[in-house]
């Protein structure tokens, strides 16, 4: 059995910040700009808040009738000629995909972006079995060439500068390391990917929405890469999480209005494609994946996270994510949504994530399907505290503080004792001063010579206060 280590987002985020003066400010500025565009797009729709509410209710309805909609989808998709596969977990998913590829003698696969396939660690699984896997999304391809997972749900390589990409392409494709013109770099990938589309024996996609009523599914991209991948090779395999069900096709009128506006501040993605059964002479396989979702559905405090449509708006608005970079979360899903999804896969490994947040609440307000993300982060902290996963310094100091704060006599004695001896305060009761990192980038506030309580006793105690 391998020993699971906790991820350390604090240390990784610090490295992201201190590496230079370029990456973190660029990352913050870009995502902040995206959030501003999102706010403008949302404000242009008077019924925006109503749309969020409707979307949330549709998802809640679907999740509380999931068995029904899954069977309806299977029935209708099968009628259209698609093959439906059911995967209980990541390894079943990978095995199913491999079997399909193997049966068709596929040696090379072109795939568009899919967080679910990331979650299942599908690419290394297939490559170990001799299948070449090529990402066709620009950002994902950059990340693949760099041997890194995506750092953002929608913008996989957003933590990289143009110069980083130019250097990476020079090393991996052999282009000019000094040419960081975006048009040039995009063209490099385009030319690099084109032959792969033609060579691939199969194309894989994810699925943004699976419509039960019609047995069809939708894939939304800006580059059209999913469409080529699904249209050129004879075999199309789509991996879809079971929570992606949408009851009726007309519901898409709600979700499509929310998705791209929330994700990138644009009215629509460039391509919003419906896949309705296999192409002529082609084959379509849909793998419906659970991988912990039905277990999550049974968690009273956390099942709402299954409403997520993977727009990434919570990441863009999150002030902590913007400064940390997505890779610092050490998990498939980063940012606020990652903080509440990742612990459902491994509570211990991801026990630090819920603390990598200020609980500012912006994620909950921006979420197009109204997931109570911020409240769930606090609830995960409670889970971690109950399990004994609180950082040691908090465990020790809260034990003392919890007692002292409950006993006013001891509190006031301690205040008096500490006051003169100490020239600084904030978490004087909670943290040993020598360990307190407050002063690394901040000056300390001065403790007042007289507390408010002392002032009050000197100035107001004769007022006949009810408590005196």
């Amino acid at each position, binding site marked *: 059995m391998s020993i699971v280590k906790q991820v350390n987002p604090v240390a990784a985020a610090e490295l992201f910040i201190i590496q230079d003066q370029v990456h973190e400010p660029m990352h913050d500025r870009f995502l902040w700009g995206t959030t501003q565009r999102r706010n403008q797009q949302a404000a242009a729709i008077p019924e925006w808040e109503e749309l969020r509410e409707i979307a949330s209710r549709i998802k809640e309805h679907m999740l509380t009738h999931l068995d029904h909609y899954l069977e309806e989808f299977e029935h209708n998709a099968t009628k259209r000629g698609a093959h439906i596969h059911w995967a209980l977990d990541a390894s079943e998913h990978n095995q199913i995909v491999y079997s399909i590829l193997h049966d068709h003698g596929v040696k090379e696969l072109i795939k568009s972006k899919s967080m679910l396939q990331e979650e299942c660690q599908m690419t290394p699984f297939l490559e170990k079995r001799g299948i070449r896997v090529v990402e066709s999304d620009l950002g994902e391809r950059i990340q693949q060439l760099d041997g890194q997972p995506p750092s953002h749900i929608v913008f996989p390589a957003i933590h990289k500068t143009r110069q980083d990409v130019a250097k990476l392409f020079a090393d991996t494709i052999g282009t000019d390391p000094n040419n960081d013109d975006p048009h040039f770099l995009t063209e490099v990938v385009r030319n690099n990917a084109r032959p792969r589309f033609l060579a691939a024996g199969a194309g894989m996609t994810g699925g943004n929405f699976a419509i039960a009523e019609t047995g069809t599914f939708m894939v939304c991209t800006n580059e059209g890469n999913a469409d080529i991948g699904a249209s050129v090779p004879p075999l199309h395999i789509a991996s879809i999480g079971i929570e992606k069900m949408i009851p009726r096709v007309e519901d898409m009128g709600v979700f499509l209005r929310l998705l791209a506006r929330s994700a990138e501040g644009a009215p629509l993605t460039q391509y919003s494609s419906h896949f309705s059964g296999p192409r002529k002479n082609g084959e379509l396989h849909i793998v419906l994946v659970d991988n912990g979702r039905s277990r999550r559905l049974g968690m009273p405090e956390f099942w709402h996270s299954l409403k997520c449509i993977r727009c990434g708006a919570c990441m863009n*608005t999150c*002030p902590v994510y913007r400064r940390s970079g997505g890779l610092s979360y050490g998990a498939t899903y980063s940012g606020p949504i990652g903080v509440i999804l990742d612990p459902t896969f491994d509570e211990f490994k991801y026990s630090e994530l819920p603390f*990598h947040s*200020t609980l*500012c609440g912006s994620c909950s307000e921006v979420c197009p399907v109204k997931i109570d993300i911020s409240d769930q982060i606090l609830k995960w902290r409670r*889970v971690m505290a109950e399990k004994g996963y609180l950082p040691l310094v908090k465990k020790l100091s809260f034990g003392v*503080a*919890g007692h002292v*704060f409950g006993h006013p006599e001891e509190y006031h004695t301690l205040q008096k004792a500490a006051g003169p001896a100490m020239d600084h305060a904030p978490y004087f009761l909670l943290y040993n001063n020598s360990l307190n*990192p407050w002063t690394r980038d901040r000056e300390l506030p001065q403790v007042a010579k007289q507390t408010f309580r002392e002032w009050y006793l000197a100035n107001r105690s004769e007022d006949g206060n009810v408590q005196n």
Partner: protein
Amino acid sequence: MAQETQTTSRQEILEGMKIGLFIPCYIDMVYPEVGVATLQLLERFGLNVGYPLTQTCCGQPMSNSGDERNAEAAEQLFVDNFKDFDCIVGPAGSCVKQVRCHFDRMEQTDEVKHVRKHTYELVEFLHDILKVDAFPWAEFQHAVAIHNSCSSVRGLGIAKPSEIVGVPFDKTANLLSKVKGLVLVPVDRPDDCCGFGGTFCVTDEAVSARMGLEKAHDQVRHGAEYVVSPDMSCLMHQQGVARRAGLDLKYVHVAQVLNAGPF
């Protein structure tokens, strides 16, 4: 005429109310002048204000970290201290949010429910309950940037969060606009978190400091001389960052401005 009668009787009701003054632990120790300003301000409106001497902390540092077990004693003490007051007013959004929103793990007795329902942050108390329309004693000849804390904006609703589509409002700005001489300056990121976040500011020091620095630069860039907030905890952090960075900014609580000191 009828309206006048109503106003008079409302004033009478308010004067008959027992108001509990909630002074959070860090204000007691580090910013007693904010406590003094809050008390004096409430007294200016003829209110009967009492300060329970056995108050300590609302339990937020523990509760916020998910450690409900160690927060319990502080939360119970808070309820015991304030259960006999009609209204409880505290000059700190995040502490008030702790009481109102997060005293949910303890048994919900009538006392607990009463305290949770009637604990107000100072700005919302002045704006929504007292409905103050003038601060004739106050004058502040400075350019002011407002910092409404996340707890106050998204937890208590004292301003419209920028993510929400709707008619903008800002209760802090509304009150400050009644102060003679005071000029409000807009900032680029008014409700982006400053990175204080309670224990976050020490456990996640690098990210916290970077967020605070961005705030301070935003304030300076727009010509603010003062940053005024209903939450001194955010300001404690911002002030520390700004001073270290050598930025010339002063940080005061909204109570100090509305009461004309003490500073």
